[in-house]
């Protein structure tokens, strides 16, 4: 043994990661991996990351347009104790996401942030720097179940207030942060008004429908919404979530089972309606993005719909090609949570969805099943061009972003 190499080990400053740990310390390994892979020269767009908008709810409610509701909401936050955020319809199972405290960044991010910069800007910048991301598309978190609110108008009040607050406090403060603005989809006329008002606003690169809702997305009431988005060349994203009140999931007693199915089921239903009702035929230039359902569901649905369609074409007379062909030509998908245990299945999935042009990297940071850019970079069966497309160039094209990398690691 060469004892001349003897040295003193350096104790890490963070011995146990908890909710107070700085994002940059939590993700130190990710940053090291990004530098090792040379991500300085790679455009990386994170098409689905999150912030916890309810932490700023006292600010957000000040952006509610209705003066009576705004006044009520502000008084609610000034005076009531021990209550949830004004107007929101419960957590619907969110409390178990951190696996009993095992994944602290999911439970809460309580690290110190600089004064004078909005918390969500600071935290997003830290995550971008650690992950090696050039652009980050921010989505809300508890608001993802607002489509189930018993008062459709509350989705309008809060969805529009969220957009206005996000632009004012976050998007205008860093042009690397982007949003697919909240569409209050349960009130189609208000969704149209939202597109009129927020298209072209700073940081708004498209619109988002939170997928947990019971409205049929093929209803005639929505055709004007789709036409408006197609005319403006702005994508529509269907962002998945789950809720344990869904009767089809009501027998599941383990959070992991409900989460595994719930995050996929809502988008499977919407995608089935989207395709079989010929929305891609009616709006061929409208780009739909299917967010946070992972990827393994897509081959199943392609096979299933193709087989059934060929036996019953009279029930889907608008289709001119197989459902799977619309799904690989007219639809885009975000990667996370990318299922990787069976790599052969993943490879086939990426082939079936034409990942080289249709797949968009997403981290879902800071949620418990987040992914890193290295998951794409390290895939052994993709060309370098395919990896570059998935990690950033496909998103740059879809959202009309500058394709040059602009980060420092």
């Amino acid at each position, binding site marked *: 043994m060469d*004892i001349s*190499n003897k040295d003193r080990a350096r*104790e890490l400053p963070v011995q146990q*990661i908890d909710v107070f740990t700085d994002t940059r310390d939590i993700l130190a390994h990710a940053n090291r991996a990004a530098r090792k892979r040379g991500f300085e020269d790679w455009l990386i767009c994170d098409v689905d990351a999150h912030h916890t908008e309810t932490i700023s709810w006292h600010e957000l409610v000040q952006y509610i347009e209705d003066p009576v509701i705004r006044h009520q909401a502000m008084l609610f936050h000034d005076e009531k104790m021990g209550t949830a955020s004004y107007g929101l319809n419960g957590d619907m199972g969110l409390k178990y996401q951190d696996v009993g405290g095992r994944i602290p960044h999911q439970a809460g991010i309580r690290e110190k942030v600089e004064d004078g910069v909005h918390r969500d800007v600071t935290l997003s910048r830290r995550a971008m720097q650690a992950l090696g991301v050039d652009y980050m598309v921010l989505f809300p978190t508890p608001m993802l179940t607002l489509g189930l609110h018993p008062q459709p108008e509350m989705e309008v009040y809060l969805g529009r207030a969220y957009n206005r607050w996000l632009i004012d406090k976050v998007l205008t403060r860093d042009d690397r942060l982007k949003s697919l603005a909240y569409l209050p989809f349960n009130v189609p006329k208000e969704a149209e008004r939202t597109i009129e008002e927020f298209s072209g606003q700073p940081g708004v690169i498209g619109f988002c429908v939170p997928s947990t809702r019971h409205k049929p997305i093929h209803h005639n009431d929505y055709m004007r919404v789709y036409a408006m988005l197609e005319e403006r060349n702005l994508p529509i994203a269907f962002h998945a979530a789950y809720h344990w009140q869904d009767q089809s999931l009501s027998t599941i007693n383990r959070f992991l089972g409900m989460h595994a199915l719930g995050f996929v089921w809502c988008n499977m239903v919407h995608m089935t309606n989207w395709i079989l009702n010929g929305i891609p035929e009616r709006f061929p230039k409208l780009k739909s993005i299917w967010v946070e359902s992972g990827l393994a569901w897509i081959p199943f649905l392609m096979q299933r719909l193709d087989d059934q369609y060929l036996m019953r074409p009279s029930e889907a007379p608008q289709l001119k090609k197989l459902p799977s062909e619309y799904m690989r030509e007219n639809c885009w998908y975000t990667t996370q949570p990318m299922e990787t245990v069976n790599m052969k299945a993943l490879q086939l999935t990426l082939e079936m969805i034409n990942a080289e042009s249709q797949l968009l990297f997403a981290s879902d940071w800071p949620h418990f099943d987040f992914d*890193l850019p290295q998951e794409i970079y390290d895939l052994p069966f993709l060309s370098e061009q395919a990896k570059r497309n998935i990690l950033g160039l496909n998103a740059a094209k879809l959202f009309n972003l500058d394709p040059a990398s602009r980060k420092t690691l």
Partner: protein
Amino acid sequence: MAEYLVCSEDEIADGGRKVVACGEREIGIFRVKGALHAWYNMCPHRQGPICQGRIYPEVIEPVDEKGEVRTLQYNEENMHVACPWHGWEFNLETGRNAGPAKYRLHRAELAIREGQIYVVL
């Protein structure tokens, strides 16, 4: 081969740990039931900082003679560390995953001399 001095043996109490950098590599040293175990701070899942995760007893669900279950329980005989990135769990003594045995932590070698703990790389 290189050795890195970590600390004296008595600085890591039972149930405690010390996570250190030895050059470019990070190692977590844990004391479980009096014995020291050292693991590379690299989760086999996504290279997360496994040794900086929380420590929990193994969770079990006893099944009675009728095949029924009633409660979850902690089994203090097996202590696990959970990766703070994604929650993958490993036995601190064996390095085995809480589920499939094919996933394991990578053990680091320790040397103890004159009451001092060394990592041997």
